[in-house]
């Protein structure tokens, strides 16, 4: 009796010891990444909020505390609202074009067409190009007087559609969004393709035995198994679109007349061109809040979807 008790106590002790050891090892492994994450992400987020409560040029030693005044000003700033609107346009356009186009391209790459390898490289090419190069390339494609797009439209007799694509407020944002989608669709293609490769062949064989059509195979096997990666892609695409900066900066600089301004480009302009570090920080922090809320919603939606299954 007493002996067996002793033994069990011993095992508990050993287990505890092992557990302690494990904890230390885990901390040891996590610590470096966590420290970097802490300094460059968490601390930065708090500092951004801290700066956003000041009226500060960013170069001056003198910082004036203004509380939430920057945020009140932000809510009354027409350009900021335009930029939010443009960001959401970009989000919607990205979700509705990049993911489906990426999926279609991924599926196409599995169909028995000659020269598959060539297509695979060609489809992926836009994503390999530097953003600045793409931006300048498309500036010339969209050019109003001798641009490629207008020339093609003219050649096929659609002169009435010719316009200065990025020079007009009404078309500029769409022209840039189209370019963004062109650039990023291949990225999702690669993600989807990798996942499709991982789907066990047996499932398709079983479907064949059951006499499933191509569409049924896609609907009942490929799509459900792709769902997790689609959700991940959606989050990536939404967050990416909310933070988007590069092509706008290169192609239009937010113009004409702020019609293509995004939150990130407006933040840059306020912070570094207008010397409003405080105000710029309040834009950054608002971006963070918006992206955070949107992500929470997507994750909640995903959880309910899984719950329903």
């Amino acid at each position: 009796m007493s002996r067996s008790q002793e033994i069990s106590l011993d095992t508990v002790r050993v287990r505890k010891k092992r557990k302690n050891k494990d904890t230390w090892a885990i901390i040891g492994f996590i610590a470096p990444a966590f420290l970097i994450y802490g300094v460059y992400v968490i601390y930065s987020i708090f500092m951004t909020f801290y700066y956003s409560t000041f009226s500060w040029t960013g170069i001056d030693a003198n910082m004036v505390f203004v509380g939430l005044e920057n945020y009140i000003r932000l809510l009354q700033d027409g350009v900021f609202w335009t930029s939010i609107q443009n960001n959401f346009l970009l989000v919607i356009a990205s979700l509705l074009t990049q993911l489906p186009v990426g999926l279609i391209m991924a599926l196409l790459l599995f169909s028995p067409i000659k020269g598959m390898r060539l297509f695979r490289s060609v489809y992926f090419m836009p994503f390999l190009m530097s953003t600045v190069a793409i931006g300048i390339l498309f500036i010339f494609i969209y050019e109003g007087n001798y641009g490629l797009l207008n020339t093609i439209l003219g050649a096929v007799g659609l002169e009435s559609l010719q316009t200065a694509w990025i020079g007009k407020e009404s078309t500029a944002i769409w022209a840039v969004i189209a370019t963004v989608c062109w650039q990023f669709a291949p990225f999702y293609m690669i993600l989807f393709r990798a996942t499709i490769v991982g789907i066990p062949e047996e499932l398709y064989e079983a479907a064949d035995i059951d006499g499933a059509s191509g569409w049924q195979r896609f609907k009942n096997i490929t799509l459900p198994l792709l769902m997790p990666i689609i959700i991940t892609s959606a989050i990536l695409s939404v967050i990416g679109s909310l933070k988007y900066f590069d092509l706008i900066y290169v192609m239009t600089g937010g113009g004409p007349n702020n019609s293509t301004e995004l939150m990130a480009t407006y933040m840059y302009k306020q912070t570094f061109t207008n010397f409003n570090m405080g105000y710029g920080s309040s834009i950054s922090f608002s971006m963070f809040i918006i992206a955070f809320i949107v992500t929470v919603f997507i994750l909640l939606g995903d959880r309910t979807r899984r719950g329903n299954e």
Partner: protein
Amino acid sequence: MINKKIFWLMLVTIMFVFAACGPSDSTGTDDAPEDVSGDTDTETENSGEDAEIAGDGEQITLNLWHIETGPSEETIEVAVERFEENNPNVTVEVSQQENDPYKSQLSVAMGGGNPPDVFHSWGGGWLKQFVDSDQVLDITDSVDASLYNEAALSVATFDHNIYGAPVSMDVVPVFYNKDMFEEYGLEEPETYDDLLDIVQTLSDNGVTPFALANQTKWTGSFYLMYLAERIGGPELFNEAFERSGRTFDDEAYVEAGRKIQELVEMGAFPEGVNGMNYDTGQSRQMLYTESAAMMTMGGWLVNNVRDEMPEFEDKLGFFLFPSVEGGEGAKNHVVGGVSPVFSVAQQTDHPELAAELVNELASLETATEMANNAGSISAVMGVEYDDPYIQEMSEVLESSEAMQTYYDQTLPPELAQVHLDTTQALFGLSMEPEEAMDEVEEKAEEVLEE
């Protein structure tokens, strides 16, 4: 046992990583002086031989940031070499930066307490922003003001104190294609009505009258500055800027805006003008391919032409923006600007040496080389020009009765941005002139009357 070993191994690794990160961390957060002296220490260790040759114990490093390219970059480098020869114990680390990124780069460096000792600017409102933040050294006592063109020096003079020395200046004429003018029987215009006739003739013949790439915004600003001056006279801007009389929503500004929109409606500018970028050469291409006949641009256009299509220079003529009948301005009032201006950062450890470097960069010798190699008008007096084109340009500047510096460099950055944005909107016909000028005035009240 094995776990323990791994744990210690990891701990050591982490310590090592942090030890390695340590010094660079401290340079990032600590004050500049320590950082610079740290640099100097390593410099002395590394370049012991150099120090021996110099026969001087202390090695000093100065940092210089500039944005010159091509021939003018070489000129800067030659000037730095001269300075290093005269000061053998000093090494100048020259860092050439790109125009637009430079602006944010410098403000980050200033704000982070780690600025270059000597830096480039355009004078005006942008430099003043740094002066107001106590980031720029007053070099009134180190600079010989009598060396410089008065108008050029004034862009870096605030409250009678000099904060920078100018090297070169530019004026903005209207460039035109002489062959095309001859072909359509056109002559250089004297009045604005003449100019309108030219615009009409050219557009009737299917030629775009003015090549303009206005995504860049400052390019279109030239037209507003000239029209406003021609209508409201040379004092209009100063009164509005100094809040001593007329304002930015003055009738003259509104009228200038109307005239721009009138030109746009006549087809004076290319299709989609607001989407075209000067830096990627879109407007110059129109000039070179003769699909456009004129371009209002700074004298540096000639530099671009020599670089991109040298044979085009033969066809290139220029005239000054014509006067508007009934207006208060005159044809010999020019829009122009100064660049580069070199200033010393307040936080430098070697103020005397840095000021000396500024004097070398803005010396007669440098300015002469700059003028003759890079084709810019000298801001230093007494330069002899080899290049007939620059000679002609500098005569234009000398004979002009008034010089208007670029609004976007004279105004505080925030106000300048509003001016540029609203002017771009005028060209896009998406804003009424009254509305645009009201917006500028509203911002001016907020920014200038603090």
